[in-house]
């Protein structure tokens, strides 16, 4: 059975929502060290969160900062040490330097995340040889390209729902508007705030920019199932607390049962700026291709 995973940025969020529908949880927000309560920066909270999840019988993965510069590396190395001490199940990184460091220094289980830019089978083969256990193919890849990666002995995780990352920067541009919004770090990014230009809507979140629309593969899950992938991710890092639980329940039912029109309508209602398929069908990421529901 495919693993259903999501991400939880803080202990507060973990305490207030049910993660029951999920098999595994990525802890921490990879887009900003200063995010209020970020589990990658607060080791006491991290310890409690891991304990909670283990009691629930969930697998625990720790994420790491997505775009580390030299000065970030010592902090990441400390986080890795802590993660190993707390006996987590895997560490996620999107930086080849960090991935290589974890494999060479600790030979610990690594998941290469979506910003790792894994576009080709040549790179999948290289990561397989390095011992990387799981990859997320580049978000820009269509299903036909992801399918080719199954030839290698590496687990594959893809996003099935939520706002996909579209870019990452060296700083938080949203802070340029702190006077306009009347709010500063670390509160401003927790508001419902969007960049909008004509047809295009984006969601700023820390150093990352996310899609304004929710990627939704609810109608098309069989197409992904045919690939026999290893994990489906619901991207909920920037969402309000209830979103994670509601979407998780709907996809759990979808995986164990079938298409339920009311659930699909619910997913659409949760997406303020609509749904899309990302790049799975070789179209612009913000386009939605109708499926079972016409």
């Amino acid at each position: 059975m495919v693993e259903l995973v999501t991400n939880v940025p803080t202990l507060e969020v973990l305490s207030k929502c049910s993660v029951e529908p999920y098999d595994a949880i990525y802890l921490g927000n990879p887009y900003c060290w200063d995010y209020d309560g970020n589990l990658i920066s607060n080791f006491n909270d991290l310890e409690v969160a891991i304990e909670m999840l283990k009691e629930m019988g969930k697998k625990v993965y720790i994420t790491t900062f997505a775009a580390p510069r030299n000065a970030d590396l010592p902090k990441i190395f400390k986080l890795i040490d802590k993660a190993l001490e707390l006996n987590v199940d895997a560490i996620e990184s999107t930086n080849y330097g960090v991935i290589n460091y974890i494999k060479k220094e600790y030979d610990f289980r690594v998941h290469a995340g979506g910003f790792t830019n894994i576009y080709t089978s040549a790179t999948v083969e290289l990561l397989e040889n390095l011992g990387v256990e799981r990859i997320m193919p580049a978000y820009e890849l269509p299903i036909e390209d992801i399918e080719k990666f199954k030839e290698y002995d590496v687990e594959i995780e893809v996003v099935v729902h939520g706002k996909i990352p579209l870019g990452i920067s060296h700083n938080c541009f949203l802070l340029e508007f702190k006077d306009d919004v009347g709010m500063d770090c670390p509160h401003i990014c927790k508001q419902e705030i969007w960049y909008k230009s004509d047809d295009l809507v984006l969601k700023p979140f820390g150093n990352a920019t996310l899609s304004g629309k929710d990627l939704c593969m609810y109608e098309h899950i069989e197409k992904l199932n045919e690939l026999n992938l290893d994990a489906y991710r619901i991207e909920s890092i920037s969402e309000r607390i209830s979103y994670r639980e509601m979407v998780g329940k709907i996809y759990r039912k979808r995986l164990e049962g079938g298409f339920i029109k009311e659930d699909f309508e619910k997913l659409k209602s949760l997406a303020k700026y609509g749904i899309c398929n990302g790049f799975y069908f070789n179209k612009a990421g913000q386009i939605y291709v109708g499926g079972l529901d016409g």
Partner: protein
Amino acid sequence: MVELLAPGGSLEMVKAVFDAGADSVYVGVKGWSRRASRYELDDEQIIKAVKIAENDGKSVRAAINAMPKTHEIKMFKEKLDFLYSAGVDAVILNDVGLMKIVKDSYPDLKIVASIGCNILNYEEAKFYRDAGARMIVADCKLSMDELREIKEKARVGIEVLIHANTDFTYLGKCWMSSYKALRVESINGKSYYVGSPNRGGVCFRPCLMKWSLIGNKTYAEGFNLPNTMFLLLDEIPELVNFVDCLKIQGREYSTGLIKKIVEFYRNFMDACIANEVNLDDWRAKLHELAKQRDAERIRKTIELMKVADNEIRI
């Protein structure tokens, strides 16, 4: 001696930048680089570019840094065979798996890790070095201290952009353009994703659209997401002491403008080495060049935005 690398968006530009004092030129392989195909060279033109370079005692790098589909890796290898036999000095690559293929096939062919690799720290630089890269292109956002530390710890060649654009996001880790609009075409059997620079097509520059910040109300409007001209000058006297290559981007600009920019930097680097620099004079000259360059970029940006709008209507 630090190398001055210039763009070759056409054979005419290749000749012009060598005349202007560039040590080497980079050209895009048709259908395989991070720019529009009209600024790339076909096989015959690449052979001619190498001959032009050899006549001047200079060299050619081939940018083959678009991400191919899995079934296109065979085409990549064929293209690599061609580039090697044509006598290019180096290949510029974006994908670490493809670097391994080049390293195994042609160990003497120099590999440059493209700006699209977005190498941000010394551990990553070591990883690319071990994968075969002899030189890495540094992101424009890295500081002088960071560059020094990478050089010291990774012991790999460093190429620094001195004329480019800094983007809203880290270059190579952005798909805002293809999220907005995308068309899949083919060039000689190789897929060509118009709207995705990572996959070999143009960027529609969504950063430069007019944006609003909205929530419960409109907080701000009419702003761009940062995408600004990047021209180094004051830093160059220090950079020439420890980096290996200074690169001028701009295959898509007019040959006349690029020739002027290359001449400017050639003369400035020579003056730095001779220790004859009055920075105020050079800043004034660069300011004039920057105005010309911005005017050209604005025209290109408007063209690209129109293309993107048409894609959406289709």
